[in-house]
């Protein structure tokens, strides 16, 4: 029975992204990166040094950045287009829709510093809307890794998959998750902990918090199932059927509570099994504050998620 734990120490998952893409590029000359003056923020300094010709910096110009990605795919390359997630999705959304998703080019969009990682810089630099913007673009596979290992696996998988992918990466420090016999499977929710009383469904930087919340709940005699829903497109409906069978669900994401993971789960349960769903995340534009403060302020913590679980159970 899967029972995930968080190892000691915190990691910036961009390091895993950077070392993985460098290794992949060394083995496959088709791989290139396209950036909007984002070499540093994408941790691509080493890549640029190793592969200067394959580091295509278009300047601060996101529309042409994504269009160039599509064109490179037309020319037989495997482009990883890497920029702050707020800009690669919001600023270039029509290019993401038309040139990548609709055209179906083999482009990997890499959203860096997603969610509220840019904390104090404010709502312009938060990327909490990207899930809602990309979910209807069902031709794009959306993956939100939870830790360094999953980040590396997601990058490796994206390189071999023929088709559009959005990797939603984070710079928020997270622990490495210890999961017995861990296997990366796109489109399949990862069971971090079994439980029959309710299901907590998380992704990305909130998975370790959901795992910790389940520990707290266990101390109170509540057995929570914890799912890592790393793939948002396509959603693992089999896992959702099983989660809904517990009778209550809490969703947790570093994103808007509208239209993202919580929205997807609410759509699913409304159609298949109406049950209480508590959606944890962010409400919209938020006041100035650090990422940690914003997490705490909106209950994105082990006690906050445990409290939401109790609310969901009370509504059952």
């Amino acid at each position, binding site marked *: 029975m899967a029972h995930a734990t968080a190892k000691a120490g915190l990691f910036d998952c961009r390091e895993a992204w950077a070392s993985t893409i460098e290794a992949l590029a060394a083995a496959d000359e088709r791989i290139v990166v396209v950036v909007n003056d984002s070499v540093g923020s994408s941790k691509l300094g080493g890549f640029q040094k190793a592969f200067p010709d394959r580091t295509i910096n278009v300047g601060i110009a996101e529309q*042409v950045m994504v*269009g160039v990605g*599509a064109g490179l795919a*037309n*020319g037989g390359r495997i482009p990883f287009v890497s920029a702050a997630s707020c800009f690669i999705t919001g600023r270039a959304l029509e290019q993401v829709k038309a040139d990548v998703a609709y055209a*179906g080019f083999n482009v990997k969009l890499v959203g860096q510093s997603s969610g509220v990682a840019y904390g104090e810089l404010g709502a312009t630099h938060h990327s909490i809307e990207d899930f809602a913007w990309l979910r209807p673009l069902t031709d794009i596979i959306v993956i939100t890794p939870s830790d360094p290992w999953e980040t590396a696996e997601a990058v490796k998988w994206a390189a071999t998959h023929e088709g559009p992918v959005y990797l939603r990466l984070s710079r928020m420090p997270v622990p490495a998750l210890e999961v017995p016999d861990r296997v990366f499977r796109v489109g399949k929710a990862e069971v971090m902990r079994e439980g029959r009383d309710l299901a907590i469904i998380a992704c990305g930087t909130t998975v370790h918090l959901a795992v910790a919340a389940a520990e707290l709940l266990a101390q109170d005699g509540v057995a929570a199932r914890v799912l890592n829903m790393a793939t948002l497109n396509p959603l693992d409906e089999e896992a959702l059927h099983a989660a809904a069978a517990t009778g209550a669900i809490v969703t947790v994401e570093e994103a808007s509570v509208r239209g993202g993971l919580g929205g997807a789960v609410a759509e699913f349960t409304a159609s298949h099994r109406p049950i209480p769903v508590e959606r944890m995340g962010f409400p919209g534009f938020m006041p100035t504050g650090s990422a940690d403060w914003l997490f705490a302020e909106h209950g994105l913590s082990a006690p906050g998620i445990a409290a939401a679980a109790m609310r969901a159970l009370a509504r059952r």
Partner: protein
Amino acid sequence: MHMPAGTNDTLSLITAKALWMRRRAFQMVYMAQLGHPGGDFSAIDVLATLYFGVLRFDPARPDWPARDRFIMSKGHASGALYTALCAAGYFPESWLDSYMQPRSLLNGHPNRNYLPGVETNTGPLGHGFPVAVGVAIAGKLSGSDHRTFVLTGDGEQQEGSNWEAAMVAGHRKLSHLTLIIDRNRLQQGAGTEETSGLDPLDQKYAAFGWDVAFADGHDIAALHLALSAPPGDRPRCIIANTVKGKGVSFMENKANWHHGVPNADQFATAMKELI
């Protein structure tokens, strides 16, 4: 298929193909009662020149890596693109009759997953040019000699993404990239210069690091000369001076034929004129 440059046979072939494309595209628009015939007609001579006098391609191998690429950024002029691809041998003529019908492969705007020969999906303006820049970068990275041609409308140049693309292409000296601007001076609602003026387009592209040339967009010999010139050391912009609705008297230079469609009398008159 690669035609020898500038022979009378080549120019005659292009002229004949362009006439067929105009007649067939207008028939498609008439049958569908949908389309953008004014823009089809201003662009058709450019497309005919490319497909029957300039481009290196093989319709049996639409994904041939060394093919020259043509990207129709003004995707609304799909009548021009579809008749060109059909005449070039990418699909049978009967397909043209399905233009914009339910489940047709000939969508109002081109889709690369529907039709061979379509290089990317276009329709929203300002998309094809950035993609063409990416194709040209890929060619340069691989040391390929293939060329990339992209056609935008002139009103389309008002989209800012084009200027991002122009800057990148100029900076990277993408010598195998040619931008053709269909300069018919009319956009959907009015003249370009009264809407948000584009002139001097030549100076703008020159300032972005491009070679710039003008051509009469309906003079096949002039177009062939301009489009088949070998690559230089930087990207090339050809401003093709064209007439919206070219070839049909009552359509020429009329903005309302941007997406106007003919009635039976107008269609009959046009067929008499297009000979």
